[in-house]
């Protein structure tokens, strides 16, 4: 009986140890990958054509979905804020509350989640498919570094595009909020704008854009990493894509907390 239970404990400890080691080595591999991305980012040749292609795919092609999400997010925020603040006769504060929420949190986070879902998945699937069909090997055999060719343009493009998408989100979200606040909920338009200009600062917008910059980097580098890690055919591509989206979103939300804690100190 004693032997049985001690065996069970040993098994649990072994399993736990193996899991910890596995995760640590995974983290090490990821950090090494990030290092390689930085290394190749500053090494010529600089592939501007590929960068613009990715900027178009990640930036321009996401505009519609970002705009659509932003308009309804702004509208629903305005409506919910109105319902809550009407009780204490503070419904005229809808404008600044929605604007600040959008600037500091909703615009970078929701843009990040949209890009993680739309582009993170596509990046992981593209690179993963290239990996299982030996296209990545073909690049290497020809003497082209696959990280420089495939990962760097995607990471740079996402890092540059996400703050721009967050800015679009902020603008369109505020338009949604303004439409609901002033046209549907009948808040005075002058009051709406004067409150926004009184309570909202450039730092609020900066905070959101800086966060979006980091989210863009994290989402794309995670997606590229999972793309390069793909093995085992179509199933592997599916698994890699899934991991890229899930981890892209989770890391965005985790980093949101730490970035917020840091940025409120420095801005």
């Amino acid at each position, binding site marked *: 009986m004693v032997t049985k239970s001690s065996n069970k404990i040993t098994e649990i400890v072994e399993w736990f140890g193996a899991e910890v080691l596995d995760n640590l080595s995974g983290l090490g591999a990821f950090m090494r990958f990030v290092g390689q991305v930085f290394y190749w980012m500053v090494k010529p040749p600089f592939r501007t054509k590929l960068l613009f292609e990715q900027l178009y795919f990640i930036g321009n092609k996401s505009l519609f979905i970002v705009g659509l999400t932003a308009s309804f997010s702004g509208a629903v925020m305005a409506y919910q804020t109105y319902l809550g603040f009407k009780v204490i006769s503070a419904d005229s504060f809808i404008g600044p509350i929605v604007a600040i929420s959008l600037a500091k949190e909703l615009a970078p986070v929701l843009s990040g989640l949209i890009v993680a879902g739309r582009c993170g998945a596509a990046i992981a699937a593209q690179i993963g498919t290239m990996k299982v069909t*030996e*296209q990545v090997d*073909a690049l290497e055999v020809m003497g082209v570094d696959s990280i420089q060719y495939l990962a760097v343009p995607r990471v740079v493009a996402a890092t540059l595009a996400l703050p721009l998408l967050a800015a679009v989100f902020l603008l369109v979200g505020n338009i949604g909020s303004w439409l609901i606040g002033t046209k549907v909920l009948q808040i005075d338009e002058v009051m709406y704008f004067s409150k926004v200009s009184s309570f909202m600062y450039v730092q609020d917008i900066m905070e959101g854009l800086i966060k979006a910059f980091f989210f863009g980097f994290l989402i794309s580098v995670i997606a590229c990493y999972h793309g390069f890690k793909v093995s085992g055919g179509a199933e592997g591509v599916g698994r890699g894509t899934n991991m890229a989206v899930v981890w892209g979103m989770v890391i965005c939300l985790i980093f949101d907390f730490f970035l917020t804690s840091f940025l409120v100190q420095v801005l």
Partner: protein
Amino acid sequence: MQNIEYAIEFKNLNKTFKGHTVLENLNFNIARGKITTILGFSGAGKSTLIKHTLGLLTPTSGDVVVMGQNLNDLDPFQMREFRQKFGMLFQYAALFDSFTNFENIAFPLREFSPMSESQIEEKVLSLVEACGLTPESVHKLPSEISGGMRKRVGLARALALTPEILLYDEPTTGLDPITTKMVNDLIRDTAINNKERQLTSVIISHDVDATLKISDYVAFLDKGRIVEHLPVAEFRQSTNPLVRRFLEL
């Protein structure tokens, strides 16, 4: 042109992955200007050997010498440049599926040669002709042409930078008999057409029939060791039990 007898030399090459030995004290040379096939069962270490040849893997111990250059002496940048001496035809051609066939063939030229676009176009069209492709197929996507044609595009791309060594990874695996013959003829013709500049062809395969028809030398790899390496006529008569088993399958 350098006077080198062997295109590739493996000297006491060992490779282990997490304690598992994949290549064990491998000593073996590949003759320059000839077609050498490396045969072996799945998991024998053929792909690991090819990756060492290309410098994609570093040996646990031992040396790989390619065209007189020890790969251990090259830093990663020199290694990348050195890889331009190789062309490789992958099992499924490994064409970039978002590029047209023309762009696939032009890719190494655009990356590494100082040629102008018109010179690149001229070179691509000459490769297209040499590999038996039709001019209209070059502007299609790889997904729009047959497996055999994809192999031709892959070979044209591999030949674009005029490599000194051409590697073929399972070139006939999974192909129908007619396409297999076409690919074999293509390998043979490419070797003949480039004989003057002593193009070395290395084929990784487990297709015995196809191999024996086109090779000059055959090596048999088993459990990370070369157990037989002979001219093709002698290889057919080999008394090695493993080779006999493989030949009689």
